[in-house]
C-alpha cells in the first residue's frame, strides 16, 4: 500500500480505536446509539457519494438497506462475517439493477423511480409472506458477544468496524480516478463523454458502490436490532438518509458522519423535549413519530438556504477563520 492509502488506513484505524475506547466510557444505551450511528454512517457515506459526487438522487436507499438486512436475517446466523458479506453482495446486485435504470434517468424522474423502489419493500415482504413474514418481520440470531465484553459494547465494535471499512474504501475511491470520473460526469456529461468517460457505466458504478454501502448499513441494522421488519425500512428511512447527507454536508464523508450522528441524536433530543412538556398521552404519541421528521425537514430547508455546505461546510469555514 502506498502513501495515500497508508494515510487513509492510519486515520481509519486511529478513528476506530478512539471510538472503541469511547465505548468503555458510555453506558449501554449510549453504546447502542453509537452502534446505530455507525450503521447509519455506512449508508450515509455511500449516499453522499452518489448524490454529492455523482449528482444522482436516490430516495431508494432505505430499500437497499432492507435487502442487506433481510439477507442477514434469512441466512444461517453462525458465520456473521459471511452473511454480512452476502448482504453486501445482494445489495450490490439490487443496486446494479436500480442503477442501470437510474443511469437513463435524470432529476425528478430518477427521484420518482428510486421512490418507487422504496415503496416496493413492504409490498414484497407482504406478498412473499412465507419467506419474509410480512409486517411481523424476521428475527436475527447474531452470534453472542464474547464473555469478556458487554453485549452493547460488542455490537458497537461490530458497527464501528463496518463503518471503518466503508470509510476506508470510499476515501480511497474518491482519491482515485473513479472519484474524479464520478465528479466529471456530475459536472458535465457531454464534456465527460468527450474526455473518454463512459457516462452511463460511471453512473451505474457509483450507484452500485453506494448500494453496497447501504447493504452493509442494513446488515448492521439487522445485527443491532436482532430483528428485521419492513417498518424499519419505510420511506421515512430513505428521507432521513437524504436529509442526513444534505444537512451533514453533501459530498463529504465527514459530513456523512455528522448526518449519521444527527439521525441518532436528534430524535433522542426531541424526545427529551417533548417528555418535559405537559402533553396528553395521545398527542405525545402522535408527536413521537412525526416531530423528528418535521424538525429534520425544517432543518433541511434552512440548511439549503443558509449553509449549502451543511454542518461540515460550517465547520471548515469556522476552522479557517480561527487560523
Amino acid at each position, binding site marked *: *500500500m*502506498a502513501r495515500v*492509502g497508508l494515510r487513509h488506513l492510519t486515520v481509519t484505524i486511529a478513528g476506530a480505536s478512539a471510538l472503541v475506547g469511547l465505548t468503555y466510557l458510555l453506558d449501554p444505551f449510549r453504546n447502542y446509539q453509537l452502534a446505530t450511528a455507525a450503521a447509519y454512517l455506512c449508508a450515509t457515506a455511500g449516499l453522499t457519494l452518489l448524490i454529492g459526487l455523482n449528482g444522482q438522487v436516490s430516495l431508494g436507499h432505505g430499500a437497499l438497506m432492507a435487502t442487506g438486512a433481510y439477507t442477514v436475517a434469512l441466512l444461517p446466523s453462525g458465520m456473521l462475517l459471511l452473511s454480512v458479506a452476502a448482504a453486501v453482495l445482494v445489495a450490490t446486485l439490487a443496486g446494479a439493477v436500480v442503477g442501470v435504470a437510474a443511469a437513463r434517468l435524470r432529476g425528478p424522474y430518477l427521484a420518482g423511480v428510486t421512490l418507487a423502489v422504496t415503496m416496493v419493500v413492504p409490498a414484497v415482504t407482504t406478498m412473499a409472506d412465507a419467506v419474509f413474514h410480512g409486517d411481523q418481520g424476521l428475527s436475527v440470531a447474531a452470534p453472542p458477544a464474547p464473555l469478556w465484553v458487554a453485549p452493547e459494547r460488542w455490537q458497537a465494535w461490530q458497527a464501528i468496524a463496518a463503518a471503518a471499512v466503508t470509510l476506508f474504501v470510499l476515501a480511497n*475511491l474518491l482519491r482515485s480516478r473513479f472519484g474524479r470520473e464520478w465528479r466529471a460526469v456530475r*459536472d458535465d456529461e457531454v464534456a465527460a463523454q468527450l*474526455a*473518454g468517460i463512459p457516462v452511463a457505466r460511471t453512473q451505474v458504478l457509483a450507484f452500485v458502490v453506494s448500494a453496497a454501502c447501504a447493504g452493509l448499513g442494513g446488515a448492521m441494522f439487522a445485527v443491532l436490532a436482532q430483528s428485521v421488519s419492513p417498518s424499519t425500512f419505510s420511506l421515512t428511512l430513505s428521507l432521513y438518509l437524504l436529509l442526513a447527507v444534505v444537512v451533514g454536508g453533501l459530498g463529504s464523508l465527514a459530513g456523512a458522519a455528522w448526518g449519521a450522528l444527527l439521525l441518532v441524536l436528534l430524535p433522542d433530543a426531541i424526545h427529551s423535549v417533548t417528555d418535559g412538556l405537559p402533553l396528553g398521552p395521545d398527542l405525545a404519541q402522535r408527536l413521537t413519530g412525526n416531530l423528528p421528521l418535521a424538525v429534520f425537514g425544517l432543518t433541511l430547508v434552512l440548511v439549503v438556504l443558509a449553509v449549502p455546505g451543511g454542518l461540515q461546510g460550517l465547520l471548515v469555514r469556522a476552522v479557517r477563520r480561527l487560523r
Partner: protein
Amino acid sequence: MERPPSPEPSGPRAGLVLRSVTVRFGGLLALDEVSLHVAPGAVVGVIGPNGAGKTTVFNVICGFVRPAAGWLGLDGAPLTARPHQLAGLGIARTLQGVGLFEGLTVLENVMAGATVSARTPFAAAALALPGSEREERRLRAEALARLDELGVAAHADRMPGTLPYPVRKRVALARALAANPRLLLLDEPAGGLGPEDVAELADLIRGLTCSVMLVEHHMDLVMAVCDELVVLDFGRVIATGTPDAVRDDPVVAEAYLGAEVTA
C-alpha cells in the same frame, strides 16, 4: 438508425474522411451530402454563416448525431464510435464556450481528459494499492506538463470558475490534448478571446503535431492556421481549397465573406 458499415467507395485513405454525409433533424436538412477529408497533420477549417451546419459536422463525427446517409471513416476504417469511445480512437474535441468540469480543479480537469490512459482497476483503487497511486502520480505529472506547455501550470490547483476566460479556454485545450489525440476538433477556439490571445492561439495550433479540424468565425485565425478550408452554407459544401483560393472564390464571397473580401 443503424447503417451497415460499408467499405469506403474509393479505397482507404489516411485521416478523417466524410463521404456524402447527410443529417436530418425532422424535416430540416442539417447536412446535405457533405464530403471532406482531413489528412494526417493537416489543419482544416470549417467556416460558414451561422446555422450552416458547422457544429453538426462535429456532432456527426463525434457520434452525438447519427447520419441519415453517407460514410464516415478514420484511417480507412468506418467511424461509428459512440462519443465516449472517440478519445480511445485518438479524436479529442473542445466545446463551444469552455465546458470545463466546474467542480474539479484545473489539474483534475486535465487528468480527466487522460481517462483513456487510466487503467487502474476498481479493486486496486478501492484498496489504494501502490499501482493505483503510481498511475495517479503519472497522470498528475502528465497533466502538469500539458498545463505547462500551454502556459497555465500556475493555475493547476485553482477551480476553473475563479479564472479569467482566456485561461479557462487554455485549460479546456489542455484537457483535450491530454488524451494525446491524432485528430483534434476545435469548436470556436477563438470565441471570446482578444487579439493577443488569438495570435497566441494561432501559434499554438500551428505548433501541434496532430491533425486539427476547426470550426471558427474568427477569419484572421482561420486564414493564419488552416491548410485547407471547407465552406458550408445551408448544410452544403459550397467550396473547398486553400485559404487564398477560398477567399478569391466568388461563390464564397457571395454566400459568406461578402463585404470583407471586397473591402
